[in-house]
């Protein structure tokens, strides 16, 4: 998603600012194909913007890793089911299925 910094070019402040503004939508996959390509090309060639993007990507990765384990809802499902039965939910269907 973020290419290596290869061909280094000098950009205007306005170009860098516009790219940084689109950093999160880019990393979230929320840009149009055209904008995505523009940002990717800029970042691959800009020694100022490239580290901003790498840092932001590392941050998002760390957040996802911190919550990587899929939650187990079985206890909650049993709790909700019991409450619904107490409320009057018919369980005959479950018993027939079981």
């Amino acid at each position, binding site marked *: 998603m973020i290419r290596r910094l290869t061909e280094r070019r000098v950009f205007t402040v306005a170009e860098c600012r516009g790219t*940084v503004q689109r950093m999160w939508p880019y990393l979230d996959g929320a840009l149009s194909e055209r904008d995505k390509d523009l940002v990717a090309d800029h970042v691959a060639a800009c020694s100022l913007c490239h580290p901003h993007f790498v840092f932001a990507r590392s941050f998002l990765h760390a957040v996802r890793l*911190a919550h990587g384990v899929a939650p187990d809802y079985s206890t909650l499902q049993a709790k909700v089911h019991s409450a619904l039965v107490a409320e009057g*939910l018919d369980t005959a269907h479950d018993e027939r299925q079981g």
Partner: protein
Amino acid sequence: MPAMLSETTTSPDVRDAEFRDTALPLLPAVARLARALVRQQADADDVVQETFLRAYRYWHTFRPGTDCLRWLSTICRNVARDHHRRGADAEDSLDEDRDAWSPARPHAAARDAGFEHMYENLDLGPAITEAIALLPPAFREVVVLSDVEGLSYDEVALNLDIPVGTVRSRLYRARRLLQESLLEYARDAGFAAAGGRPR
């Protein structure tokens, strides 16, 4: 199959079967929303339970053919609102961040402090969980749904019943707050800046 439900259905057996088949399978999705809306896990579980109890009581008001998850999400948001009156939270500071360089500032701060590689070199998992839990509710819910659950901007907007533009502005502000908090944690925890290793 919601599309086949009939509002004229009155038999309790049929009604219960419809509820079991349509609403109950959506419990994990509702639980994820509750987790985003309420800080403590136990409170989130209570919100889920109350959501399904209310849904069961008012199942006759569910309109067949409409989106059941959206209907449950509305109930869940109302329950969460009732669960804890938040008082003044982050809403006052939710204006869109108009600083064009804002997304780059956390990196600049980390680089200046010698923590440019903190996310690669430090185990920040517990700190991230804690930092998310401490976010103002309006920020926490978008971060959990987007960055933890992986929902798109449109999906988050649908879940929370807010405009996509609001999702974006809250999410970007929330990420900035999280990054600031994590940098502070890294400093306070005594990690050596060079290499990001514990002293």
